[in-house]
């Protein structure tokens, strides 16, 4: 069975099937419905029909057009005994010497993209946010809330606080005791997805900041140190993608107005190649 490969994109970006369906399409739709029904009955989270295929990967790489900016040193004036010894720097724009831009979010913006069973089974049940060396690690993370919880750990010998307020969800303001010891871990469950990442703060240490994207599907990625990203397991179709970076939120590029672009996902995989980011795109020097 295939996912809705014949979907075509309406001008507004919504997906609709063509009015006239062939017999084959009817058969396919019936199969999809049966798959959805069985999937819903079998598991508490939503995912669509079982697929023989493992989906298609979309990959690419962000490169910075300019000399890598220097990471500003942050003022560490709290818990100086513990945190003072670390070289804590502003991570809001991470460009590596080779020019790769890390911490750019790439995610599927289209609603209702089906998720194959294989993808659901492969994904981890928890996503880790570590308080280590007086900063959050990783700085940018994303999770699929229907399947994954946020697992927060304190690895520092001082108490840490983790506070965030997602839109339309319960706010969190968690204290974690100093490590090693008891009460150094928390598991937070989200109740709804978000359309963009929100900030995670520590009220004890104002320099600590992380970003978290909570989605209702597993089709997201955060670019790594080399600027590369890959979203795996996508069903074929024309899906709209979103780019987001903490400096500017929606990453507005020439080919990506408001950080959005519809990409035809088909074949063995889609390589978006190198996406070049100018300093002005990331509000550097502005």
């Amino acid at each position: 069975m295939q996912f809705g490969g014949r979907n075509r994109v309406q001008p507004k970006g919504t997906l609709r099937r063509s009015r006239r369906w062939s017999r084959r399409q009817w058969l396919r739709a019936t199969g999809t419905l049966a798959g959805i029904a069985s999937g819903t009955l079998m598991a508490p989270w939503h995912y669509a029909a079982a697929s023989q295929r493992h989906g298609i990967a979309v990959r690419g790489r962000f490169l910075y057009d300019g000399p890598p900016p220097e990471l500003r040193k942050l003022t560490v004036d709290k818990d100086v005994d513990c945190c003072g010894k670390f070289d804590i720097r502003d991570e809001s724009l991470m460009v590596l010497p080779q020019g790769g831009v890390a911490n750019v979010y790439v995610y599927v913006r289209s609603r209702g993209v089906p998720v194959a069973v294989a993808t659901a089974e492969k994904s981890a049940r928890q996503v880790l946010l570590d308080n280590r060396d007086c900063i959050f690690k990783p700085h940018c993370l994303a999770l699929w809330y229907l399947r994954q919880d946020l697992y927060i750990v304190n690895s520092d010998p001082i108490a840490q606080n983790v506070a965030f307020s997602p839109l339309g969800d319960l706010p969190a303001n968690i204290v974690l005791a100093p490590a090693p010891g008891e009460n150094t871990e928390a598991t937070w469950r989200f109740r709804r997805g978000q359309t963009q990442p929100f900030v995670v703060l520590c009220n004890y240490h104002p320099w600590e900041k992380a970003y978290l994207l909570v989605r209702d599907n597993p089709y997201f990625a955060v670019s790594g140190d080399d600027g590369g990203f890959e979203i795996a397991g996508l069903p074929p179709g024309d899906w709209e993608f979103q780019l987001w970076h903490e400096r500017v939120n929606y990453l507005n590029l020439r080919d990506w107005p408001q950080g959005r672009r519809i990409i035809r996902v088909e074949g063995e995989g889609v390589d978006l190649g190198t996406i070049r980011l100018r300093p002005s795109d990331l509000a550097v020097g502005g």
Partner: protein
Amino acid sequence: MIWPSAVRRKHDDSDPEARAFAQARDADRCRGGAVTLPKPEGAFGPPPSIPYNIRMLHTAFSILVSSEMKRKIPQNGDSAGRRQFIPCGDHACFGIVGARRSAASQAALLMLAILLSLGGCSSYKPPDFKLNLEGRDPTRVKPAQREAIEEMLTDLFGTPDDPRVPPGLDLDLSLLQRAAGPIGRDITGTERGLFRKHCVVCHGISGDGAGPIAEMLNPYPRDFRQGVFKFTSVAGGAKPLRSDLLRTLKRGLPGTGMPSFSPLSPEDLDALVEYVRYLSIRGETELFLLRTVVDENEPLPLQRRFVLEEGVRPIAALWRLAEEQPGQYVIVPQRPKLSPQELAAAIERGKALYQETRAQCVKCHGPDGRGDGSETELFDDWNKAKKGITDQQTRELAKWFALPLQSLRPRNFHDGLFHGGGRPEDIYLRIYIGIPGTPMPAAGPAPGTPGVFTSDEIWDLTFYVLSLARRTSSVPEDVTVSAGASEKLR
């Protein structure tokens, strides 16, 4: 301008309640409020849903009927022939009360009635909910988007005069109608417009916490639209119970601008609690719509079903959470009964816990609990967004917010004033579940939070905090928990 939902009382100066009512009504007029014209006893005002012109026609005929009756019934004192000026909006219109009239003046009055019915004595404009543009550049919200959001919100939640409950929501419409609308009484003498009478001056008509006097208050009145409430008995960031909001209404928040409304009847208080819940759910739906329509460019027109399923119902589910799973979310303080020696020991243990690094109490509240810790840049969630990285940024941001940036002061326990209440149970809850929307974190175990203190340890801390307050405060510690009062305030 305001029209009462039902009958108006006869204007009678001997009745003190009617006099008080008339004063309230006159005050209402000063704000461009209703023309509340004297009417004969037993007359019924048309409900506010009737179109404006018909209502004005009704008003005009009321004048006629009123004067006609007064002409027939002998009047006391000098009321006969008195000309009564009624300021309404920009104009002034008048009725001639009790004048003996010739046929010509009757005809003139009829003309006036018709004119009033057509044009009106001023433009009646019921108050609207204000779109939440906090932190946004209003020019970046397209007119079509603004219209779509406002239409959808009106469709789902009605207007300040005529609230509606979206399908599937646990809100009592009859209570909402009592709290909503203009100030007045209905046919049964039940007071209406309670929110406008008691709350609007601080909390604003939309519940935005930016009423006319909000800027003068510290802390600012609560903005209900974010769905976060500071003083609750529910852990895990869950929404407050009705009883939590009721407690705040009854007891007020000592040390803030929020007074106690305990003189109001229980039904009136229930109506206000329900209206706060309504404004909050509406406000959170509005935030969802702004995110979807403005930030996400959702194609217009908006689908009602989509908004209900993605916006309203998840928010409503959060409001039901604590009620449905009280075992997990609702924290019921069980104060231990201690002898004086045990209490002294508990205070000592609490003092040690306070200094420990587990919860970092000292960081904000200072080593002696004087609110002078090393954390000085503290803001609540309503103010955080107004704070830029540099002072310049903060100044630039200020223009997108209704109220200027206000920092948060950690409590100085020696003052003996606790916003969330000074009973041991109150202090216990503040430490256990923290104060949502502020940097004060949850120290007790709850869903999603391991907690750093056990229940016993939190009691020790509570007694320590109260022991500091007792030392300097002239108010006896147990003043709020005397046997009868305690029962009444629960």
